[in-house]
């Protein structure tokens, strides 16, 4: 099969699935709808795998499969081709998206089994996959933007999937509107880049970047990248646009796993990695990205410490981990960002699905205060969740350890980095370890606190298989990027596969020096140690001495309240922006509109009516007269052109 066919199958299989399930959206059979949708996703995954195998066969410098389907827009300089590219970066992403996507489709068959609109659900899920593939594989910004908008739409549809519940519908709208802010900035960034480079193609832009060099704040590349980054903060839930993500947990849990943990929210990171030479050329933007990323990591983690809803904890954890990825991008460690993106997709999808399994078992109960001791009821879920937990708090040799450590090390060591960034990252890691242990403790360990009426039951096999696969990936997924210092002491000295793979695509920060291995070992040791202490503390608090947290919370007083209420950001937005706006509008409406403008307009309207009577003859519904006006316009234009 030709590359073109394969690529078409890869991209359009989910779309076909969407159409099939979309037309039978009223059907109730989860098995049929799920099989169609999962089949589509698996077909996509297999063709992605085949293409990546082809890619590996190519020499390292030419690893790129480009397929151009048709000319989409051709206006003057703007020439947009519906072209798709698999290279080293998109290969990783496409495998993650289709692979994890297929698993989550499979999980959904079990999870959504009793739902009314199951065919609709799977149709949306497939549409999401299709748009995500557009986003990942598009070889220019516009195609990516189509996918970008498409996944936003699907996210909205799926968050508000149970739209009869007003709160959930509102959550969907919140996500959509917040994303629109970012999307507008993304468009602006695209305009700036097009004005600067005259093209929207990633490869061409990345080739053109070395020809320019600029360091000022208002220069086009900095402006463009900043706008793009604002777009990324919207989609990837960073300060200040992260508020939608926790609310997005209103959607079905597999959706949270797929869209709001593993794939869509990483689109911003992916976009930055894709354009890394461009961002590299704008150090000011990089600094901002690193700062925002670090702040988000710390702040979201601190909110996570206080949440009681199992999915909310995971949501804040996601925001925090995304902050890590942006921190990595900001210090120029794009490879590390992509690495963490991948491992995070594994373990966070695992934990979300695990939480889905728990919620399923607890009959839609999400409050962790009403759980506890589930270890013996849900042994398989517990086991897999345990692996996810080990991975996220960074216990070697689980996946999270390698990627998180890489980011921390780069934050410290890179010329664009700073010890402050490292400190932020380490603080985030400590808090992550704490709240994740807290989550484990309250859910699985200790005494059971749920009412006797509930009998938790282990999920069916169809839901457990994806958990097992993801657990294995979370355990070993990090081994493709083992840092040099560790590989030196390992038997056989495995190389850093990821680094060599990405090398032709990822620019290194100029001026990177070789570092002392001892320093790297030291930092690694400190962070792991801190995390371990933090985890142990949490274990102690929530399993051994459950009264302590309350005391600490009481002693912290106001501070705890602030954190518990998520720093009052939502309220802040309401007080600071939305309410004043509403009040201002009301004031303006009463004083200016009613008393002044309306009265003026009455006068004007009389004038208009008078002249309207006069001009009415022109727009009289007589189409021939309209045609005559068109003719007059054409004649005038032609005369002008000819006389010029």
């Amino acid at each position, binding site marked *: 099969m030709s590359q073109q066919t394969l690529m078409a199958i890869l991209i359009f299989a989910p779309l076909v699935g969407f159409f099939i399930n979309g037309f039978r959206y009223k059907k109730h059979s989860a098995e049929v709808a799920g099989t169609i949708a999962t089949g589509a996703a698996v077909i996509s995954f297999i063709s992605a795998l085949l293409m990546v195998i082809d890619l590996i066969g190519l020499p390292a410098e030419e690893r790129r499969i480009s397929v151009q389907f048709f000319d989409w827009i051709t206006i003057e300089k703007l020439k947009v081709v519906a072209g798709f590219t698999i290279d080293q970066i998109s290969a990783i992403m496409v495998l993650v998206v289709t692979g994890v996507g297929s698993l989550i489709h499979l999980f959904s068959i079990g999870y959504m089994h009793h739902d009314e609109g199951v065919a609709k659900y799977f149709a949306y899920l497939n549409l999401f996959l299709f748009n995500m593939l557009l986003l990942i594989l598009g070889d220019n910004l516009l195609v990516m933007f189509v996918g970008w908008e498409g996944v936003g739409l699907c996210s909205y549809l799926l968050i508000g999937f149970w739209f009869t519940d007003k709160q959930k519908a509102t959550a969907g709208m919140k996500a959509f509107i917040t994303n629109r802010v970012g999307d507008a900035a993304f468009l602006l960034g695209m305009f700036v880049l097009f004005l600067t480079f005259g093209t929207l193609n990633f490869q061409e832009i990345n080739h053109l970047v070395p020809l320019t060099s600029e360091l000022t704040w208002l220069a086009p590349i900095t402006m463009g990248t900043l706008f793009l980054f604002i777009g990324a903060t919207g989609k990837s839930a960073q300060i200040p646009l992260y508020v939608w993500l926790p609310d997005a947990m209103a959607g079905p849990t597999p959706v949270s796993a797929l869209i709001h943990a593993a794939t869509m929210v990483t689109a911003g990171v992916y976009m930055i990695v894709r354009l890394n030479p461009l961002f590299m050329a704008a150090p000011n933007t990089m600094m901002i990205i690193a700062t925002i990323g670090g702040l988000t990591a710390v702040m979201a983690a601190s909110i996570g410490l206080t949440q009681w809803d199992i999915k909310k904890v995971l949501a804040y954890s996601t925001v925090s981990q995304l902050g890590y990825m942006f921190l990595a991008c900001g210090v120029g460690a794009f490879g590390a960002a992509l690495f963490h993106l991948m491992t995070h997709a594994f373990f966070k999808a695992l934990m979300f699905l695990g939480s889905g399994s728990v919620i399923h078992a607890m009959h839609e109960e999400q409050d962790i205060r009403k759980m506890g001791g589930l270890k013996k009821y849900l042994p398989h879920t517990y086991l897999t969740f345990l692996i996810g937990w080990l991975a996220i708090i960074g216990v070697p040799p689980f996946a999270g350890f390698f990627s998180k450590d890489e980011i921390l090390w780069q934050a410290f060591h890179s010329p664009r980095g700073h010890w402050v960034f490292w400190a932020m990252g380490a603080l985030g890691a400590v808090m992550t370890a704490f709240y994740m242990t807290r989550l484990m403790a309250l859910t699985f360990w200790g005494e059971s606190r749920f009412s006797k009426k509930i009998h938790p039951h282990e999920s069916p096999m169809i839901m457990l298989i994806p958990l097992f696969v993801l657990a294995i990936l979370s355990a070993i997924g990090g081994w493709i990027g083992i840092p040099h210092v560790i590989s030196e002491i390992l038997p056989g000295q495995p190389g850093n596969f990821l680094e060599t793979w990405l090398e032709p695509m990822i620019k290194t920060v100029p001026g990177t020096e070789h570092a002392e291995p001892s320093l790297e070992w030291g930092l690694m040791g400190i962070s792991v140690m801190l995390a371990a202490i933090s985890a142990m503390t949490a274990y102690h608090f929530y399993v051994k001495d459950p009264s302590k947290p309350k005391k600490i919370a009481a002693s912290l007083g106001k501070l705890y309240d602030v954190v518990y209420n998520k720093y009052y950001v939502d309220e802040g937005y309401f007080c600071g922006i939305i309410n004043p706006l509403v009040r201002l509008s009301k004031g303006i409406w009463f004083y200016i509109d009613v008393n002044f403008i309306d009265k003026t307009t009455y006068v004007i309207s009389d004038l208009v009516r008078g002249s309207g009577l006069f001009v009415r003859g022109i*727009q*009289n*519904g*007589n*189409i*021939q007269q309209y*045609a*005559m006006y068109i*003719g007059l316009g054409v004649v005038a234009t032609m005369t002008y052109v000819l006389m010029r």
Partner: protein
Amino acid sequence: MQNSELIGEIGLTHYLILSALLFVAGMAGVLLRRNAIVILMSVELMLNAVNLSFVAFSHYLGQMDGQVMVFFVMTIAAAEVSVGLAILVSIFKRYKEINVRFFEHLKG
């Protein structure tokens, strides 16, 4: 029949002027006739004129794109006629006559 020395006599300009005249004829029909069906036919005439110049350009500039455009224009013209005639039939059913002035009732 393709004696190369004689081909120069008929050139692109001939076809363009012919197409322009056909177009103008159609335009006159659109502006001056009262029967809505005849107006629709005049629109078809204009489209045909444009098609002719497309094909002429395609021939004399050696590019196929013009012909593809003609193909598309034909499709869209057919679509336009289908919908246009459907609307006209509805109007005819109501007023028992087809005259453009009945379209004035369509204004808001």
